[in-house]
């Protein structure tokens, strides 16, 4: 196209798609801005909770758990440990590792024991994490 030729004007259709496009981009940029302003400069706060039901299948006990990061930063390699104490002695242990847990995220899983956790005391705790 040479410069003497008339530049074609943007058509109606092109204006419509352009406004939709700039709308999408504006939303994304403002959401990023929003998270920037609301950024909590806070280390991860991790908690693990037992879920209500323990399933028993073929003599094995499935104890579901949920781990939540209520802090600001993302935690990596979150280690969750479970100890089953029967008569004051540690009879069984379990370990689980979660790759990534970002702020506000929760992950679920289960520990499997061969003894009934209801007969003793079951301790769940978060063992460690590392910062990415």
């Amino acid at each position, binding site marked *: 196209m040479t410069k003497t030729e008339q530049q074609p004007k943007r058509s109606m259709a092109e204006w419509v798609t352009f406004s939709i496009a700039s709308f*999408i981009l504006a939303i994304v940029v403002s959401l990023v801005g929003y998270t920037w302003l609301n950024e909590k400069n806070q280390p991860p706060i991790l908690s693990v909770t037992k879920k209500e039901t323990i399933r028993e299948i073929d003599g094995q006990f499935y104890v579901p758990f949920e781990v939540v990061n209520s802090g600001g930063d993302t935690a990596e390699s979150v280690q969750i440990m479970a100890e089953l104490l029967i008569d004051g002695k540690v009879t069984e242990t379990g370990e689980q590792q979660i790759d990534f847990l970002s702020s506000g995220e929760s992950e679920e899983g289960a520990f499997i024991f061969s003894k009934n956790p209801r007969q003793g005391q079951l301790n769940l705790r978060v063992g460690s994490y590392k910062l990415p």
Partner: protein
Amino acid sequence: MPTKRQKNVWRSEINDIIRGACGGFLFGIPLLYTMEVWWIGSLAKPQLMMMAIALMFVVVYLLNQIEGFRKRRYTGLAHQAAMDTVEAIAIGLACSTFVLLLLRELTPETSLRESLGKIIFESVPFALGVALANQLLGDIENSNAEGQATNSITKNKGGELNATFADLGATLIGATVIAFNIAPTDEIPMLAAATSAPWELAMIAASLLISYGIVFQAGFSDQQKRRQQKGIFQRPSSETIMSYLVSLLAGAFMLWFFQKLTFSDPWTMWLDHTLILGLPATIGGAAGRLAI
């Protein structure tokens, strides 16, 4: 005839957008199947995301000044290139969000910051692909004449069967090239673990739609030639389905080749692994058919 002209305007605009999206898919799909990019997105700070958007804007703007995804060019107008850039980025954002949702990498439970990071980092290659759409598969003006010439040659050589085999061969090569790159990685089993039947159906639908879009809608260089191509499966719909099946086959073979799947694995595993690899494979197959 104002109505007809208006219709044409809309049609060409939609075609431009589809062409851009298809270019994005060709260029961006391998990175969408890379977990490291998901992680980088998950961990990215908002400052970094802003920087990614700004850098993406600059690079796509420069590409758009040379050659954009539109057929009609606005030479030498800086603000037109800037507007095209906004559209290219929006197409990239929309398409990468769509695929991330399809792959279950974005779910309603994903936190806002993490989703934003994933979407923005995945949309960078997508937006580049959108801007490169016209260059990815050759020049339009020349190839129409060329295409007709080669088309008459194939006609003379005759043989619906020949054309069909050429098509299937090209699909197989394109699909294998992409599947070869993705099959040995850990992403396929990872994604397969999170998927369920309705998502697999959605994946099939998306694969067919994108494949159809690339070959028959996007108006890439050889589209004219493709539409005239004679073969057993010369109708666009049947060709799309046929090539999808070929791409699935190529994907399954590659998974077996890299020992991601063995014959002792259950058939459901074969099915979901193959369907997940089928999406990039069929995009590669579509590119292969356009390239011959």
